[in-house]
Each structure stands twice: as C-alpha cells, then as structure tokens.
C-alpha cells in the first residue's frame, strides 16, 4: 500500500514536475491541427503535438484536471488568459463552452459582451457547478488560431 502510493506520486512528479503537491492537479497542453493523408488518399485533420506551428494554424489548448486528494473540492473556477499572439475561436466539440471576456473582468457569451469578434477575447473561464469528488477528473479545451 505504501509502495503503491509512492509509485503513484512518482508518476505524478514525472508527468508534471512543476506541479504543486496540492489535491488539485491541472495540466495544460497544446496540440496543433495537421492535415494527414491516409493510405486511401483522403485527408483528415488530426491533432498532433505542437512542434511545428506557423501563423494561421489552428491550435487546441487543453486543461486536464484531477482531484488527487481525499476530500471533495468545491467552487472550482478555471481562468485561462488567452496567450498573446493567439486568437480564440471556439470550444472544441465535447468540451463545455467557456465563459468569455474581453477585459478579464466581465464574463459572458459573445452576445452578452456586445457581439464582438472572437478575436477580441482575452480570457476564457470555466466554472464547475458541483464539487469535484475525490479521484474525479475532466478536461476543458478550446480552439484558437495562431495570428
């Protein structure tokens, strides 16, 4: 039992060395859409690690979270400033839509913010309505374009 928990801890440290040892682990990842040609000649869009990204490419930022503690965590708010040089586009399919902000203070949908272009978005924010149970996890992700 002790060995196992040490082993788990080792895995956590290996994947995210910069992570604080708190009960909530949040990992940010970035992938880029790449056209891949299949053997039958069709092209499909695949997500690959963002090794080669040039202006105009679509990138996907992902936040993966997990409660590693023994207690439920309440009132979770994930605030993700959109990196400079990147233009927000949309939530990825299967991800909850974030609240958007163009100033970091007021959050809402684009329509609520005065129907601005998605280019003007400076922050995205997700809130969990219910507490996160021990061991539970999930992901949020949004699409953006490198300017």
């Amino acid at each position, binding site marked *: 039992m002790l060995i196992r928990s040490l082993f788990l801890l080792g895995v956590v440290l290996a994947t*995210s060395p*910069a*992570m*604080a040892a*708190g*009960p*909530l682990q*949040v*990992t*940010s*990842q*970035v992938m*880029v859409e790449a056209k891949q040609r299949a053997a039958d000649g069709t092209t499909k869009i695949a997500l690959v*690690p*963002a*090794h*080669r*990204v*040039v*202006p*105009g490419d679509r*990138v996907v*930022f*992902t*936040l993966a*979270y997990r409660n590693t*503690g023994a*207690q439920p*965590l*309440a*009132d*979770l*708010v*994930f*605030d*993700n*400033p959109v*990196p*400079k*040089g*990147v233009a927000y586009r949309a939530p990825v399919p299967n991800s909850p839509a974030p609240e958007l902000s163009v100033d970091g203070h007021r959050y809402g949908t684009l329509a609520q913010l005065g129907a601005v272009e998605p280019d003007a978005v400076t922050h995205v924010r997700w809130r969990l309505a219910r507490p*996160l149970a021990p061991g539970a996890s999930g992901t949020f992700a949004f699409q953006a374009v*490198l*300017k």
Partner: protein
Amino acid sequence: MFVKRSIALLLAGVAAAALGGGAAQAQTPAAQLTTAGTRIDNTASVTYSVNGTSQSIQSTTASFVVDKKVNFTVVTAQTGPTVVNLGDQNVVTTFQVTNLTNDVQDFLLDPDQQNISLGLFPGSDNFDVTSLRAYVDSNGNGRYDAGVDTQTYIDELAPDASATVFIVGNVPNQAGARYAYNSLHVIAAAGGQANAQGAVLIGTDLNLAGADNIVDIVFADDDSDGALLGDIARNGQGRAYSGWHVAVNNVALSVTKSARVLADGLGSANPKAIPGATVEYCLLVRNATLTTGATGVTLADVIPGHTTYVPGSISIGTPGALGVCNINGSVEDDDDNDSAETDGYTAAFDGIAKKVTVNLASVSGGGSVAASFKVTID
C-alpha cells in the same frame, strides 16, 4: 416593344446587383503575423475551496515556439518590355520583391536570360543582352543609378516590406535584334544579420517531427508567375519575367547634296560656274525617324575633278533656308584634330585622296544637320 425593353433593363439591374456581392477575403498583413521564434505559453489559474477555505493554484504551462512561414512575391514592376536601342548600355527591367514571411529575410537574386519565347510580348526572343546583373534599388527612387545601386542581394527585408530590383545589361550592336526576354529568380535566405548575405533557407522536412524550441522553416510561397514556367509553389523561390524590345533597328537617314556658285571673281550679281569661281557644296543629313537618334554618322565626299578645295572651308551647323546651306555653322579645321571641339562635329580634308570627311556624333530623331565646304573651279 416598350414592355420588352423595361424587362431587359430590370434583368440588367438584377445581374449588376448579384455581381456586386462577394467581397474577397483579404490576407493578413505579414507584419501582423506572430514573429518566428516567439514562444507562446498557456497557463490557467484555478481557484477552489476545501471545507470552505479558498485555495488557488496554477496549471502547468503548455508552450510552443512559432515557426517560420516563408512567403514572398516576385512581380514585374513594369508594363511591357523596356524599349531600347542597339548599343545602349545599362538598360533595365524592373521587378518588385515583397516579403510576406513572419520574420525578417534576406533574398538572393539570380538574373536569367530566357531563350524560349514565353509569349509575353508580340515577338520572339532573338538576342541576349550582355553582362546581365541584378541590383537592388538602394535609394528607393525607382531608377537604376549606376555606381549607386550596387547591392546584389536584398538585405534584411522586414515583413510586408518591398524592395525594387533591377536587371541590368547592355544591348549588343546586333542587326535585326528585336526581343530579349529575361527573368528574375529570387531565393529566400536567412535574415537577422545586417550587411551580410544570409544562407539559403532549407525547408524543414515535413515528414520529420519538428523539434520544440527550434524555429522550423515551412515554405508557404505561391507560384507567383502563374501560367509561366520556372516557379514552383512552396519551395522558397520565386520568379517573374520581363524583357527588352529594340523597337527601331534602323533610322531613315537621308543625305541630300546640292551646290551653288558663290562668286565668279567678276563680281556678277548672278555668278556663273567659270574657272576661278567659288562653289559651295552642301550635304544635308536628315533623320526622318522621330523616336530614335542616329549616332556615329560619317559622310565622305571626294571633290570633283578640275576643282581645288578651299582650305578651312568646312562648316557644320543647322540647315539654313533659301539656298543658304547652314546657319551658325561652326568652322572645322581640316585635320580631324579637333580637341577644342565641343559640338560633337569634326571634319577633315585628305589632300591626297581629295576627300572631305565629316563626322557627326549624333543626328537626333527628326533632326537634321548641314555640312558645307567650298572649292574653286580650276
């Protein structure tokens, strides 16, 4: 009839409205693209509460480095071929290179003679200019200045900036020369060091995984010359075509010779051609081609038998009227040694061959020059 006409008008109006609809999507200016080498970091801050106590943490940081998207255009910056004359030195065709890369770039210039006729101009390629060079317009005045525009590659061209490039050459004195096609071949090279020619860019193999924290090179240049050969999309090279046209291969030069008796030694009001009389010969040179000057015109005239040349009588100048050969004529000496001459006209008399030679540096398009000399009848 009236009804039909109104229907036609109505339809025309609809068509015009439909055509005016689609607005083209403008391309993002290169200066607004994220510069190659920029590091993009993404971090989220998260707040939560445990048993009513607020906590906050940062997520891990996801980052990537923006790679280089090499794109540029090469276009011909003139309409039609440059019109030249045989023997012209430093004739020019003009091109423009625009950097659309998200980084500062050098560009190498490679001027080419084209020996295949590309159908750009009405005629086919039948001569080559000599000593072909390519220079950058260093002072940005759009004109080739020999000795000033000496840079042979484009140095440190910023995103969205353009450089004017000249292909320069000399037109041979080749009879029948009509068209010479040329092209400017431009190769993207590494920027970042002023006054140094960067190395040619090599695209990162797209089949290999690009390394993080290294600026990969991705070619995104289009085939800028469309239907013509020599430019392939996405290879970091571009090409545009132009050429020279010798519009006038010959000028309509005519020489009219006339003679008049100036005096017969008897003081006659109407002098006769008798022994002892002085006769003036007049050579009138006319260039009927308005657009082109004739250069290096040489006249030779052997004086008739039984006459003696009057020394120092050669005069060259503007044609006169009413029988006067020339007005404001400059008197030439007889030995071709005209060091003090500034008008471009020289002359000589060869006493052995009895020959008058007149050298005219140029007769302008549509212009005329008259040369006269005198003899006495033996």
